[in-house]
């Protein structure tokens, strides 16, 4: 099994699934000739041609809308939004159109598209190349929201998203693109959407997280193990629909819950998870549910000290875990 970086896993998912199924097409800004600004789609144009790998004008509503239109004719389009920060012009298409096609036609039509969008901070991207916007999509039914953290999951979940009957918003933390590496099978395989995984088993507390923060939380858990605190780290992988069973069974085992995400605190998915735990696992709790998230700003400012202050890191997560363990 070859070791791949996260971005190679994304590219491999697109390549292998397109080779296996000619209904799959890719469209977005700079995705064809350039191969994407992060090179996620590099090589696809040469292999699959300009009718399946399409450079689009700077028109995010048009990119997602065209993907929707193509899906109506039985294709499986993968639209790329160059940065998650630019998904806003496409929101009407995602929430008012793609999410509702099946429901509003009473099951007659469906809209099996994927919208890929690089997200996240820590790369000096400032206010408009750093945003985490998953909270904008997790409260609308009809769509699924996926954020992988490992190369293996990136490939398996992207392939599953492409073949999923519903629209899937697929966020990729751009700091992970070249910083993580792992074994990735060749060929087509599916990881299940809607299923969390336990990255580290533990008995003292549950840490619910995803994306880049799954890595930081694991590092923090390693530090705490040396201090005698045994934390369980759950990588949610899918934010909509949430894996409620995985969340509740973990917290019922440990009695303590910390939610860690890079998206902002207010309105972030952490609030929903905390509510879920309060509603269905209150009697199992030994401490209040805690959330650790980015401050309620738009994204990180450009200046280095501000970015450092904005970003979570393993030390901040470890501190929050210690605090929760002491309660």
């Amino acid at each position, binding site marked *: 099994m070859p070791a791949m970086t996260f971005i190679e896993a994304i590219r491999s998912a697109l390549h292998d699934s397109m080779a296996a199924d000619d209904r799959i097409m890719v469209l977005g800004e700079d995705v064809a000739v350039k191969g994407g600004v992060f090179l996620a789609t590099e090589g696809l144009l040469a292999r699959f041609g300009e009718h399946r790998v399409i450079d689009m004008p700077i028109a995010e509503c048009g990119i997602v809308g065209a993907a929707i*239109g193509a899906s109506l004719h039985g294709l499986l389009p993968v639209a790329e939004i160059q940065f998650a920060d630019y998904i806003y012009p496409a929101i009407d298409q995602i929430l008012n159109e793609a999410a509702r096609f099946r429901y509003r036609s009473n099951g007659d039509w469906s809209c099996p598209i994927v919208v890929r969008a690089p997200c996240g901070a820590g790369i000096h991207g400032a206010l408009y190349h750093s945003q985490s916007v998953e909270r904008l999509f997790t409260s609308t039914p009809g769509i699924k929201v996926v954020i992988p953290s490992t190369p293996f999951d990136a490939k398996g979940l992207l392939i599953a998203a492409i073949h999923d009957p519903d629209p899937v918003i697929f966020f990729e933390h751009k700091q992970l693109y070249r910083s993580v590496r792992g074994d990735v099978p060749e060929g087509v395989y599916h990881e299940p959407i809607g299923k969390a995984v336990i990255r580290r088993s533990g008995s003292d507390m549950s840490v619910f997280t995803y994306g880049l923060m799954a890595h930081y939380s694991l590092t923090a858990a390693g530090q705490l193990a040396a201090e005698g605190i045994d934390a369980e780290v759950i990588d949610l992988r899918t934010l909509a629909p949430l894996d409620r069973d995985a969340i509740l069974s973990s917290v019922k085992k440990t009695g303590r819950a910390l939610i860690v995400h890079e998206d902002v605190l207010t309105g972030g998915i952490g609030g929903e998870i905390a509510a879920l735990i309060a509603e269905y696992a209150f009697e199992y709790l030994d401490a209040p549910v805690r959330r650790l998230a980015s401050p309620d700003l738009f994204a990180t400012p450009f200046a280095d000290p501000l970015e450092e202050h904005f970003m979570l890191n393993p030390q901040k997560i470890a501190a929050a875990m210690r605090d929760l363990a002491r309660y």
Partner: protein
Amino acid sequence: METNDTPPHVRLGLSRQRLVAGLRTMIASRETDDRLWLLNRQGRAHFVVTAAGHEATQLGCAWAIRVGHDYVIPYYRDMTLVMALGQSVLDVLLHAMARRDDPSSGGRQMFGHYSSRRLRIVSGSSSVGSHLVHAAGLGLAFRARGEQDIAVMGLFGEGATAEGAWHEGMTIAGIHQLPVVFVCQNNQYSISIPVHREVPVPDVAMKAAGYGMQGVVVDGNDVFAVYEAAHQAMERARNGGGPTLLECKTYRLRPHSSADDDRKYRSAEEVESWRARDPIKRFEHYLVEHGIITSEEIEALRREVRAEVDAATDAAVAAPYPSVESIADHLYG
């Protein structure tokens, strides 16, 4: 031999059967429209958005579509169009009264959101202009599949041409020369806003130049002019000749919807002047003049349609609503 005197229906190869069926559809649409306003006043239909006045534009467009083969992306005013494509008076009334067997949405969408996968009529939202990007996407899909001899018709009012999504759909279709015919039904008002406050050029069709496609203006109350232009545009699209923006100039004869009072923004004289140019009367006059049908036969047709609308009203009123248990069906696949 064809001359300038050759009647348009002969020149366009429209058979007597097609012409009479077309007239019947126009009358059925207007009679259903009238009935819906009545049902609205009776509290039995929550909302009506009118098609009155647009019948010639929509019938002419429908004639240019190969039903179940070409895709149609309508907007809320397209009742005549969907009837001409195969939805019945009962289908429309079940939709308007939000009954379980509404073929467009199963009682989920407000009236005017026509849909049928079988007929390739694409479901839409109420977000004006947002559907034309879907038309462009269908064009990309045909290309990806190597399919030719197929086209999309997307329809909208002139108000939609101010929307960003409309611009993006036109841009993508123009860049890739996709087989899409964009049909603007310019009825001169977007609810209350007159056309010169919504469109900065005299003809919507002038905008086509900015998107690398042909722009065509026709009298939208002349069913033959509409059909000829729509047919040419659809054929050009099917044959790889790229997209067209077809502007059909018309007028809506009723308020925008049952929630509108048009007396606030247009004069009774103006409306009356357009009533005198009613596209159905105009079509009837043509057919009688050319010996296609007699006035007596038209009256018989109208009586037949009214009986159908009566029966469909009774059936729709008696039809069941969707069950409460079904409220979350089809959220996910």
